[in-house]
């Protein structure tokens, strides 16, 4: 079970969290103006990254907040977790896993 550092609560076990898919995909302000292919891409196409992947998590059984994380998909190590609206840290050091 992974240990995930919620930016609001600190390190908690994975079973408190829900994975929320790829991060930084914004819903168009006016979806009606989006072309068919772009809309299909938004709905269905996701990166399948080998390496560092920006993804959403929700601390469902904790504070309930969504946040973003950089996780290396090759070894499941979290490089960083950060709040919504914040840009992904460029090269943040690995967060200390234990509070």
């Amino acid at each position, binding site marked *: *079970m*992974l*240990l995930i550092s919620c930016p609001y609560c600190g390190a908690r*076990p994975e079973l408190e969290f*829900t994975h*929320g898919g790829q991060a930084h995909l*914004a*819903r*168009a302000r*006016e*979806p*009606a103006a*989006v072309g*068919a292919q772009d*809309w*299909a891409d938004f*709905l*269905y196409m996701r990166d399948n990254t080998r390496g560092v992947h920006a993804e*959403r998590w*929700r601390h*469902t059984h904790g504070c*309930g*907040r*969504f946040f973003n994380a950089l996780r290396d998909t090759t*070894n*499941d190590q979290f490089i960083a977790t950060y709040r*919504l*609206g914040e840009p992904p840290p460029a090269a943040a050091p690995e967060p200390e*896993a*234990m509070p």
Partner: protein
Amino acid sequence: MTQTLRVAQGGRVDRTRTLQFSFDGRSYKGLAGDTLASALLANGVHLLARSFKYHRPRGILAAGAEEPSALVSVRRDAARYTPNLRATQVELYDGLEAHSQNRWPSLAFDVGAISDLLSPLFPAGFYYKTFMWPRRGWKALYEPYIRAAAGLGRAPTEADPDRYANRYAHCDVLVVGGGPAGLAAALAAAERGARVMLCDEQAQLGGSLLAEPAGEPADAWLVRSIASLRSNARVTLLPRTTAFGYFPHNLIALNQRLTDHLANPQAGQTRERCWQVRAQQVVLATGAIERPLVFPGNDRPGMMLAAAARTYLNRYGVIPGTRAVVIAACDEAYRAAIELHQAGVAIAMIGDVRSGADGHWPEAARRAGLPVLTHATVLETRGRLRIKAVRLARLDAERRLIGAIQTHACDLLLMSGGFTPSVHLHSQSRGKLAWDERVQSFIPSQAAERARSAGSCRGVFSLAAAIEDGADAGSSAAGDAATHASGFPAATDGSRPPPDGAMAGYAGALPQPQAAAGSKAFVDWQNDVTTRDLALALREGFVSIEHIKRYTTAGMATDQGKTSNLNALGFVSQRLDKAIAEVGLTTFRMPYTPVTFGSFAGFARGELFDPVRTTPIHEWAVRHGAVFEDVGLWKRARHFPQAGEDLHTAVARECRAVRSACGIFDASTLGKIEVVGRDAVTFMNRLYANAWTSLSVGRCRYGVLLREDGFVLDDGVVARTAEDRFHVTTTTGGAPRVLALMEDYLQTEWPELQVWLTSTTEQWAVIALQGPHSRRVLQGLVQDLDLSSAAMPHMSVARGAICGVPALLFRVSFTGELGFEVNVPADYALAVWEAIYQAGAAHGVTAYGTEAMHVLRAEKGYIIVGQETDGTATADDVGLGWAVSKLKPDFVGKRSLARPALNAPDRRQLVGLLTADPKVVLEEGTQIMQAPGQRPPARAIGHVTSSYYSAALERSIALAMVAGGRARIGQTLCAAGPSDDLPVQVTSPVFYDPQGKRLDD
């Protein structure tokens, strides 16, 4: 029986406490501190088991967790019967009852041993190649026979009555292994102030030190170290605890055995505890396992690893035989020979497979007058139930005989092929391994977690060096990289430094003279895999070691190839003429040793297996004979059968009561979400497909929630209870999903909206009253509520009270009848329900369950999300196009609704189906075909989603999703049955009161 092979003194057993035990019904004596294996050896018993595939007689090979052969069952009673235990790990207690396995009628005479003679029929992969025909034969004949013939122990016949526990723990440093390196690591880390946990699979801490002769400096160090750790409050020592799994982010699973060693465990005492330890740092000090040697006839009882023999002698005071031949590929074997010799065992010969042996121990053996033969190999062994003789030869580099073949009588054959570091946990953690030339084995290199290995599990074999290595690992794990004095007198071990290559040993099959036929040479004892099987796999073209492993099953038994993996690799490397490092290693998986199901289940059994959700009215339903069904975690009353009623008659009666009088229904499981805030209406407009601005306070609307891809996710009645407040109901199963979706959009897409979301599912209980008499039933119970149609029309909501309890009253209907849903705080629900039920008696009130509810709503063509919809249905597909706002510029799913595919005329649409015979109720899921007699590849054009017998219509009805269904109303299609096809007429999905007159009473 007497313990004839117990030496007069020495060992760590308690000679003052004699224990009685039985094996296969025969009574023996042992001592406190014995394992079942050591106690049996003390009594001269070597034959313990029959092998998995060939039923060959097997004895005790090892002294610890790596034992592949000596598997036994231990029985306390019919339910407490544990099969497949390694006799080397079963602690002896008074009255222990053990049984051998996989033999009939007895261990010494086993009819199944015929399979050994027939073994040419069962080469590797035989079950892939033979028994192919007749086709039915596999299921009826071959598989049951093979299953019965091959195998290990049998499962207990009764449910496990014992208690198992789970525990979570955190620590700074977890040390796995309580041998010299592990103890040194724990001491060093504890000295640095770290919170330390140390676990060891054995009852006593000490690991390999326990196999050292008593009275040496190592013994004093062990006693001192354990005392120091025990006195430290920040150290937790866990003996009898196996670290069996390494999971990401330093989560280690431990299995602690608490009662298996006790003669009389107390009732209710926890048998095992499964720990999940999250460690900042891990030190793996898991030791090394001695390798057997591979030669013809290497599996007879009486054959043992050399280090195991030392353990039996020095720890248990037992000599495993009286006349031994020792086959050595490393210097450790000499040490065993010397000590056994001193204990009175005649050493007939030490055959060293190497060309020379001049280290400390070989020299000591020669000085003691023990005969040594270099260039040695074993040609053959003899003895059916116990080894009787060994034939040795000397071979030159070209595998030509040097001199004469020697035959030595013996009752014990010791072997040492060197030591394989136990890298299981390191490898489980995805740490990398590297081939080490010096120790001829794979050792840990790069760790993937915050972990380090220390001692012999990384090839540091000498005692002093292992202790230093452990101390270094412990202090660096505790955050101090400086070297640390272990307090161990370095000089004691200095007299026996292993020279380079002394520990390298041998991997693969021992060389045999050219053109020697030879009998079976076992590589994997537990799965009965021989060199012939491996050779066959190579001949048949398997090259990858992972494929060879699976084809031959080498290393795939419950022992995970602890004694066999490297020999299998060595053999493959010999045959392919490739270095072992190039052949590669197979994957290590958890568990390190088998773990009981009870330990994994822990408390999660019976009632605690899964949470059960019950409504506040549950108790009443139980009292009134409800039959329950599981809906998610909820228990819902399905129907309330009266005496003599089956499901069908009970549901028909309940349905008639609702249509003719009044039914009462527990709808408390309905999901409820309160949407509150200045921007609540904006939020609802953006989320739900319906228009909400026009919904006035006090009114309700049937809401449809789509996913962003345009398909129906959920539905439910939404009430506006204030300008800034919506009471949103969801399906029973969909509540968490809907709330999660709401939170997602609110937090990530529209954080500017001032809206708060609260689940109120458990706070509001819902009592539905449905039927023409429902108003009359409620009339006398409510306060501050006008139930008239003028004040409270269909789809309205009002606050008031019922029976003096604050209530939110809805006028809604999921039956097509006049209906109310009384929402009251959960704590009052049972009292209110009972009051309504009592008041309703005069009006024919009848409790109905979910089955009647399903029939009633199907008669009206009301959909159930997840039954009519399957994640690919749009609102229009299921006849809810009217609910989707055409005017709102945007809501979740709107853009997708404009996609051409979602507007194709041949989409499956909700329709009704009527069978020609009104008594025939179609199976739900029945495929609808265009014409009779069609079978695949003809495509189905639809499927039945709901199907019931309608009491009100006195005939069967069905709802179905049919391609272009609405345009087919009036047509006759075909329902594909298992034997014949039935004509079905396509109708409107609304079967009952299509004008909806009964709603507007």
